């Protein structure tokens, strides 16, 4: 998070045209030399406040989301890597599960996010280690000009979906309190043709697939986000943030399940509390930040079955508790001569306990992490920027191999925003606590996953009167050794091992065009990713057909496009995203039975703003999956067809 601190001094050039800002941001910054960083546009965050972060990431970024169904588990793959290779933070504290190493993005409502930043690949070394794929940052920010606001949003959608969001801000020039509360519910009972079940027609003898309802799929979430900001003097900023959430959901049975109605019932409950306090101090000697955070997560999972004569009996009843403490001290300073330094110390501790009251299995463990980060950045004559970042981690007192990053930017033509970027880095990802200690199977002898990356990019930005064009293309190559895979051991249970070597190569392209055409304001953006994530296995063990093949569930091609148009009080948006086929076998065999064919999603929305004295009011109607495509993100988990969503916003 250190470089975000440094970036705070940056001024953007603003042109105000009919109330819309056409902003060209600085793209030649020594603190960002050699790295690819994307900010999700705030208008996208506002438009998608009623959905989960998983939807936003899959529709508006190059991160691929493996979605187990609407409202169900959604994990990320950044640059073809595993879910645990994406490091995620909320206001500076890491929120990856210390047990599983990953984040379920379906559990994060976009509503709680003000600013969303992606650090692609080794750019994540600026934040912490382990982000071999990259890192994602959700932040809340204070706006000292916005003092008293009340805002209520009601969303109503297909499948008995109801969302309520309330926000109020109170304060003055020195102190601001911002409160957000939300409730999301969906019965989630869409219908689909069930290919997993065949009924034989008693008359004709023909086999038919029933039209089934996505049952046992409902979810409820309650949440509260409270932020407090205090600015005793212009160069001191204190903040305290709390985010609490309780989420209940049932997990659909396999679509082919034809057992008793009250069997194979799976449900999950997540209760989360996160709190973080910051003190930021700015002086002529530099910027100091002190941060402490605490995260508490409880996750319960159960599977119930009907037992004749006994009623519903759990076959799985697993409860886990994860508590983490985070502490950060950082210092950054400009030393003159276009030279800056940064130093960060992180000290984190995790405590986890997991037990299954049916099998009596489980484990308790803890981990301490110390990370020391240093960076030197220098610019040369506004033509070259150099960014050297070094990180050293200790896990439970043991030194993890050193993590170096060297990045450079070259301004190819004087005073033109055409920047050539390049970097070379090594990164390590430490096994999760489940990988090490899960019972049975946990393997305490696992080595950290070891990634070596190079990347090269070209960024360009041009402003034409009141239009702005921005584009960036990056190619990367990450060689990951000791990739951890859970596989059945000769002991009969599954066990993680450092067996794979994965070579992930790809290209990321993004483009944005925005501006005003007389009264029409437009914003167009698109991105495309080519991802080749190839398994090179271990030929000694795996003389098999998976060598040289694309990893399962990683699409080679993915892309998205968003068009926002507004004219007076009306606005219109069109969202497109598409994925090429994904393999479900390590050998990349395709049979039509288990083929995850390409799919293309199209959503449209139309809305209008009203103003009545102090009260402003807006309404939006949205159609998801406009062309009613049948599609799957994972095998035999049908996704919903065309569906509708109505939003009403009141603001005082």
């Amino acid at each position: 998070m250190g470089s975000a601190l440094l970036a705070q001094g940056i001024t953007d050039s603003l042109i105000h045209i009919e109330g819309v800002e056409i902003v060209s941001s600085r793209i030649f910054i020594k603190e960002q030399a050699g790295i690819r960083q994307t900010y999700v546009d705030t208008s996208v965050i506002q438009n998608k406040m009623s959905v989960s972060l998983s939807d936003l990431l899959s529709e508006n970024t190059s991160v691929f989301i493996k979605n187990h169904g609407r409202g169900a588990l959604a994990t990320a793959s950044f640059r073809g890597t595993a879910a645990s290779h994406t490091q995620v933070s909320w206001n500076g504290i890491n929120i990856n599960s210390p047990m599983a190493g990953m984040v379920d993005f379906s559990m994060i409502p976009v509503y709680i996010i003000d600013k969303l930043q992606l650090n692609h690949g080794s750019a994540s070394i600026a934040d912490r280690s382990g982000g071999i794929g990259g890192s994602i940052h959700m932040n809340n920010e204070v706006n000292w000009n916005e003092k008293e606001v009340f805002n209520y949003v009601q969303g109503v959608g297909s499948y008995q979906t109801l969302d309520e969001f309330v926000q109020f801000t109170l304060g003055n020039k020195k102190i601001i309190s911002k409160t957000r509360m939300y409730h999301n519910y969906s019965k989630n009972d869409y219908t689909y043709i069930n290919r997993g079940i065949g009924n034989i027609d008693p008359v004709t003898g023909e086999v038919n697939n029933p039209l089934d309802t996505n049952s046992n799929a409902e979810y409820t979430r309650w949440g509260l986000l409270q932020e407090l900001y205090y600015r005793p003097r212009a160069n001191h900023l204190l903040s305290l943030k709390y985010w609490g959430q309780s989420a209940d959901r049932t997990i659909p049975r396999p679509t082919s399940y034809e057992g008793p109605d009250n069997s194979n019932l799976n449900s999950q409950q997540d209760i989360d509390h996160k709190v973080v306090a910051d003190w930021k101090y700015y002086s002529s000697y530099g910027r100091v930040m002190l941060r402490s955070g605490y995260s508490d997560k409880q996750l319960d999972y159960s599977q119930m079955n009907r037992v004749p004569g006994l009623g519903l009996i759990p076959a799985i009843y697993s409860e886990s508790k994860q508590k983490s403490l985070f502490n950060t001290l950082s210092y950054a300073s400009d030393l003159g001569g276009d030279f800056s330094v940064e130093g960060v110390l992180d000290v984190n501790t995790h405590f986890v306990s997991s037990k299954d009251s049916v099998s009596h299995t489980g484990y308790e463990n803890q981990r301490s992490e110390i990370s020391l980060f240093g960076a030197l950045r220098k610019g040369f004559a506004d033509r070259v920027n150099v960014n050297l970042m070094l990180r050293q981690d200790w896990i439970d007192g043991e030194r993890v191999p050193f993590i170096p990053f060297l990045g450079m930017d070259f301004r190819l033509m004087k005073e033109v925003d055409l920047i050539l970027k390049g970097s070379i880095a090594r990164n390590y990802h430490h096994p999760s606590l489940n990988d090490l200690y899960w019972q049975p199977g946990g393997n305490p002898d696992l080595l950290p996953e070891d990634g070596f990356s190079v990347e090269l990019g070209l960024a360009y930005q041009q402003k034409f009167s009141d239009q702005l064009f921005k584009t960036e293309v990056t190619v990367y190559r990450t060689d990951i050794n000791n990739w951890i895979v859970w596989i059945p051991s000769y002991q009969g249970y599954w066990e993680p091992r450092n067996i794979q070597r994965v070579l992930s190569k790809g290209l990321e392209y993004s483009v944005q065009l925005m501006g005003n055409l007389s009264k029409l304001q437009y914003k167009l953006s698109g991105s495309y990713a080519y991802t080749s994530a190839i398994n090179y296995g271990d030929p000694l063990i795996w003389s098999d057909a998976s060598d040289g093949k694309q990893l399962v569930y990683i699409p080679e091609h993915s892309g998205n496009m968003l068009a926002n148009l507004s004219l007076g009080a009306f606005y219109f948006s069109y969202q497109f995203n598409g994925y090429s086929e994904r393999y479900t076998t390590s050998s990349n065999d395709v049979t039509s039975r288990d083929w995850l064919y390409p799919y293309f999603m199209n959503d449209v929305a139309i809305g209008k703003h009203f103003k009545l004295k102090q009260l402003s009011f807006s309404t939006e109607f949205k159609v998801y999956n406009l062309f009613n495509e049948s599609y799957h993100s994972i095998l035999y988990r049908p996704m919903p067809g065309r569906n509708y969503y109505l939003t009403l916003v009141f603001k005082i």
Partner: protein
Amino acid sequence: MNDDELWEPEGEMPLSTGGLFIVNEGNFTYGNASLSFYDIEHKEVHHDIFYGINGLPLGDVAHSMAIRDSLGYVVINNSGRIYIIDVRTFEYVGKITGLTSPRYIHFVNDAKAYVTDLYARSIAIVNPQTYEIIGSIPVSNSNSSFFQHSTEQMLQYDKYVYTNCWSYDNQILIIDSEEDRVVDSIEVLKQPNSMVLDRHNSLWVLTDGGFQESPYGYETPGLLRIKAGTRHVEIIHRFEEREKPSELKINGTGDTLYFINNHIFRYMVENASAPELIISSPYSGLAPGGYYALEVDPVTSHLYVADAIDHLQRGNIYRFNSTGEPVDTFSAGITPGAFSFNPDTP
């Protein structure tokens, strides 16, 4: 897109003239279980025969298959059902549904079969002709703090059906098939995973001992001989600690046992000497994976060994003759876990 065209039957399959069905589990929750068919005489394998003929996926985690008359009963564990096929044409002819987590089917007579279950704490009684559930046999053990009993394989001696309770358990339950109730039980070693009945009506039971640090406790695995009539444990062979024997099978004449213990071992029921290694696994003991399933041809005593590789691609089947000489190698589906011989084998 509209995916209707994906679900058309893929067309003609040769009629089965006798051979070996391979039940491929697929991956848990992926719904990609499949059936392969191997023509023993012509050494030809046909993949995905159920889907190919019927345009219908088999389901989620196919666990076992049993054949009676001309019908094959495929037990699909996480789909809670049994699909019934014509073993000559592979055509889908019916299903038994309403099963919680079924594992194996055993035919008592033309109108009665038992289906064991991992989670139901009861054995379902089904009618294999009408495909209906007609009753259940409770097997719940509320004296244990572990989830008991789950039931697995079944063998019949006289009117008694023996079933092993594997998961966090150490019992063989004995069911009177006339009264449809549990009448007795035999305590064996921890986690009996497979069993066979030999020509002398002795029950051989292989136990895997659970896993080290298991809350249920761990013990070294064993091979036990139990007199089916007296229900007494007569012989116990112990394995080494950390060995994990599985897949106990017997030849057609009921005198030779085979099992996997990393490698393939053979054991003559007549002699009490140590099991003999007959097929060496190419996988070292520390390597992941390894041999996953085993079957013995009841007529020729040829051995079929399944290798699931990484469980995410088509597994391999290695065929050996009775002395362990390689005969053929072919691929099956994802995670080949069980076999069933069509008794019409020429």
